[in-house]
């Protein structure tokens, strides 16, 4: 008997897993909702709390232009190629990662190696950069209201951290694996 919850318990309903055609029409979320920090200004925010007003200093540093381009929510976009890369080594001093990349869309293109500056990795992904890490280098075109632009982005793959349940499963499996080998 399968010990997992049975489908019958979750009731009948639609089994349609398709969706209507979707592409975004609105302006990029980041433009709408994230306040644009001004380079020459010392921004500050006044927050009203129950205890009274509180003035907070919010210094924000813009990323360097032409590097670390965060993925923009284009009105429409088309990937020309998505390269799945695996980091082979990282030179922290030179801020370069070496990777082997494999194309996801055009299988006729073979694997390639390359060195990539960490300046092109978005800030939140920098802690993920290590040997074995996987990233996606997407070469794409994005169409905004009146123009079409070429763009590239690098995003690192995120997986859940190891859990106690995982560790236990690994330990049990390791014992079984050892038994697969004589000696």
């Amino acid at each position, binding site marked *: 008997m399968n010990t997992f*919850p049975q489908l019958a318990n979750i009731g009948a309903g639609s*089994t349609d897993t398709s969706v209507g055609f979707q592409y975004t029409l609105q302006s990029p979320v980041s433009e709408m909702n994230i306040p644009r920090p001004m380079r020459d200004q010392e921004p500050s925010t006044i927050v009203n709390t129950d205890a009274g007003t509180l003035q907070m200093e919010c210094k924000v540093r813009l990323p360097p232009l032409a590097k670390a381009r965060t993925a923009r929510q284009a009105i429409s976009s088309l990937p020309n190629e998505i390269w799945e890369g695996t980091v082979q080594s990282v030179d922290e001093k030179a801020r370069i990662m070496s990777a082997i990349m494999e194309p996801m869309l055009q299988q006729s293109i073979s694997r390639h190696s390359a060195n990539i500056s960490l300046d092109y990795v978005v800030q939140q992904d920098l802690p993920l950069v290590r040997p074995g890490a996987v990233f996606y280098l997407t070469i794409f075109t994005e*169409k905004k209201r009146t123009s079409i632009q070429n763009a590239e982005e690098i995003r690192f793959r995120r997986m859940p951290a190891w859990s106690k349940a995982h560790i236990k499963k690994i330990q049990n499996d390791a014992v079984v694996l050892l038994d697969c080998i004589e000696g």
Partner: protein
Amino acid sequence: MLYQPEILSANIVVLGAFNPAIFSPDWLELNQLIGPDDAKVIRSSENFVVTRQVTQLESETFRLLVEESKYQASCTGVAGPHIRDLTMGVLELLPHTPLRAIGLNFDIQYRFHDSDAYHKVGDALAPKSIWLQVVGDPDRAIGLEQLRIIVQDGKRGEEPKSPNSKTISVHRGGNTLTIRMSYNDHHEFVDLPEGTAATEAAMEILKEHWQEQLQVAGQTFSQVIGLAIAES
């Protein structure tokens, strides 16, 4: 060039029993499925909703819509495997979620530069001869608006061998001379092997099939358009 693709979108739909309230940006960030900047964007988005009945999150790269019976992850920025990875991560964290089905969806919009070629596609997929007789008025234009083809295992007239299927849809685009094509790869979780959770089966489908179906979708669409233009 008669036509070219101009938009690709991808999304994943999972049917089952979910608790939408779990899917907060805090939970996703704590479990390392999103980064701190993504979490910040989500929290400050005006589309941000987390309730017991529905959760909607939107970052620069994905949108997540979770209802009690449905999970849907879509690409908001350029389409990519990050929604696959996000969904696999979610299923890994919630291994006991009862699931009914999973669908891998890919949509491409094509822009035609040649109106003859554009009309040839519609005329080949939906021949107009019957409609012309029915409508009978030469001053009225008849055109294909939407077509849906389902492909199942097994022969016509027999019971399908499995509930899995592929569905290809063709829609007239919102703009002139555009055609939108959708591809749905549908899998249902019935008769799973002993000891296999539906979430495991779903992760296996995502791991083994997402990339392959992305390629198949593009090839299928190109083939349909190419054959339609050649036939007319």
